[in-house]
């Protein structure tokens, strides 16, 4: 009991070691810093996968540990991406505009520069005015703060309203789903101020940086690995103490936690908001690697995928979420990227681009039915961990409670 945090959680050390080795290995094999075995686009794919692992850790905190099946966390992920995207786009356009106006005889006034930037960015939606929400886009510092502030505030307000009225279980899931759908639909409008369905593009270019994408991709890869490592440690630290005890208690039996004198709503709100911020940071690192963000990214299906990753990896264990997200998202890239060989059946050819989602859906159902502990459960097999027999009963009466087969 008096041992240090790392000693009590050896899996954290193992995880960090594997992550560092992986990051080093990719760097050595990359085009930017190494021998060029791994293409730059694949480095970006791996970097993006690390960001997805980070949001999966957040999802595991909120669903696997607290029992709130949020189907809206990709809204926060997308918002984080928009926040960093606004600065990237503004600053890059400014540099281009200043450059081209410098050719003119009379030096441009700053108002003229801003107008020209506005025309460049918003011409595509038939406007040239900067909307109110772009007020801080000229400042990297402010926009970086907004990455956590905007999604955090949204989560705080939404969570406060939902948890205060004691909405739980499937109803809460539907509510979060509605939130992300509403946000996506709003952003699809041209006058939403974020360029409607065009979204923000050209995000892979860092303003003022002349280094090639080969190099920049590794920077972002390392930043994503660092964020994942820190996010994982934070999550492991949160769940290891009494706070972790309380949220696992809320997952299995929230009425009981209430009668112990803990304010369940406040704990849920804290976890919901914190994980929204983690998701937003993941998104802010993801979209500069993807290069483009549009409201499609916040479609409800994205958040459902997130739940599928965590379920396949094994919920209620952090490394399970990471493994699930990495495994499924990379596999998905392989299948949908046209790299998987088609299977000719004579009368019909299975094209994986079309059939991958069916495969994913079937594996999700199979995992839920036959291996509820997910991929993470394999580690229990390896370590020969003994599972108590609960005679088929769940660990608690709540909807989010671990089922017997999920528990370890």
């Amino acid at each position, binding site marked *: *009991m008096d041992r240090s945090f790392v000693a009590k959680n050896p899996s954290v050390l193992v995880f960090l070691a594997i992550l560092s080795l992986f990051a080093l290995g990719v760097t050595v094999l990359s085009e930017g810093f190494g021998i060029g075995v791994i293409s730059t686009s694949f480095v970006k794919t791996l970097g993006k996968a690390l960001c997805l692992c980070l949001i999966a850790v957040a999802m595991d905190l909120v669903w696997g540990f607290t029992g709130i099946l949020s189907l809206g966390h990709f809204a926060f992920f997308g918002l984080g991406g928009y926040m960093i995207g606004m600065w990237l786009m503004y600053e890059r356009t400014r540099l281009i505009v200043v450059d081209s106006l410098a050719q003119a005889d009379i030096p441009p006034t700053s108002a003229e520069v801003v107008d020209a930037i506005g025309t460049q960015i918003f011409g595509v939606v038939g406007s040239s005015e900067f909307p109110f929400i772009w007020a801080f886009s000229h400042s990297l510092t402010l926009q970086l703060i907004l990455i956590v502030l905007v999604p955090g505030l949204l989560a705080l307000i939404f969570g406060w309203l939902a948890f205060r009225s004691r909405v739980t279980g499937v109803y809460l899931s539907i509510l979060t789903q509605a939130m992300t759908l509403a946000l996506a639909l709003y952003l699809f409008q041209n006058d939403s101020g974020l360029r409607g369905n065009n979204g923000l593009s050209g995000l892979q270019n860092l303003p003022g940086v002349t280094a090639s994408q080969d190099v920049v991709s590794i920077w972002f890869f390392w930043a994503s690995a660092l964020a994942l490592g820190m996010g994982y440690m934070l999550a492991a630290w*949160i769940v290891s*103490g*009494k*706070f972790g*005890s*309380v949220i*696992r*208690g809320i997952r*299995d*039996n929230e*009425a*009981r936690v*209430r*009668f*112990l*004198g*803990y*304010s*369940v709503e*406040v*704990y849920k709100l*804290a976890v919901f908001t914190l994980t929204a911020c983690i998701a937003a940071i993941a998104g802010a690192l993801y979209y500069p690697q993807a290069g483009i963000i549009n409201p499609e990214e916040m479609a409800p299906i994205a958040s459902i995928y997130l739940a599928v990753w965590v379920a396949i990896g094994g919920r209620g264990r952090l490394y399970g979420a990471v493994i699930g997200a990495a495994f499924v998202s990379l596999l998905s890239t392989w299948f949908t990227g046209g790299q998987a060989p088609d299977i000719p059946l004579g009368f019909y050819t299975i094209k994986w681009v079309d059939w991958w989602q069916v495969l994913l859906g079937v594996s999700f159902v199979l995992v839920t039915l036959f291996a509820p502990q997910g991929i993470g459960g394999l580690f229990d097999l390896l370590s020969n961990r003994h599972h*108590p027999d*609960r005679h088929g009963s769940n*660990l*608690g009466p709540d909807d989010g409670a*671990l089922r017997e087969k999920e*528990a370890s």
Partner: protein
Amino acid sequence: MSTLLEVSGVSVTFDGFRAINNLSFQIGNAELRAVIGPNGAGKTTFMDIVTGETRPDEGRVIWGEKSVSLLRMSEAKIAQAGIGRKFQKPTVFEDQTVQENLLMALKNKRGWLGALFYRPLAGDLDKVRELATEIGLKDELTRKSGELSHGQKQWLEIGMLLAQEPRLLLVDEPAAGMTPQEREHTTDLLVQAAKSRAVVVVEHDMEFVRRLNCKVTVLHEGSVLAEGSLDHVTSNQDVIDVYLGR
């Protein structure tokens, strides 16, 4: 004897069914009380009202020396004020060890920031060991509570209640599903607990109530039918008619 909890004129209706009808009830500090009554008499609803889970349609629930009303407080606030509750089914956190269960219940700050930065002090761990010894689970501290036997879970839950250091303990059918030895141990625990705090035990089992050797309140159709020693109420004709005679 000063009054710790005073329930007066409380009524509650569920979909037209009057579960509690003008119920009045008082208990003082350091008193043991058994509440008996047939199914549907309103025993569990009575506990729900005191712990804040159910809001009564009318009546007052007054707590402590400062006579605060519990009706406007949340469940968590009521628990913090010093009312502990044990459910009929043993409800411990099965995914967590006995020690984690007890630490969570241990009287400490309940805020989320406090819990986030909380690390058990030596004093807390000593207290947990002491409690575990008292409830006979000293050797099971590191086991997940889901692995415990039914009786052990009941004791763990009682241990968690004691860890909360409540001033009033509401206990719903503690002896259900226990072996005779386990019952005896439970009786001792409850009698011991009632020396320093108020304890209300809801129980079906007359033998168990007799062993508690305390004042008894008989509920029927949502109100108090009789109150007094067990011998007194069992000789009451009304009680015999509605409950014992069956």
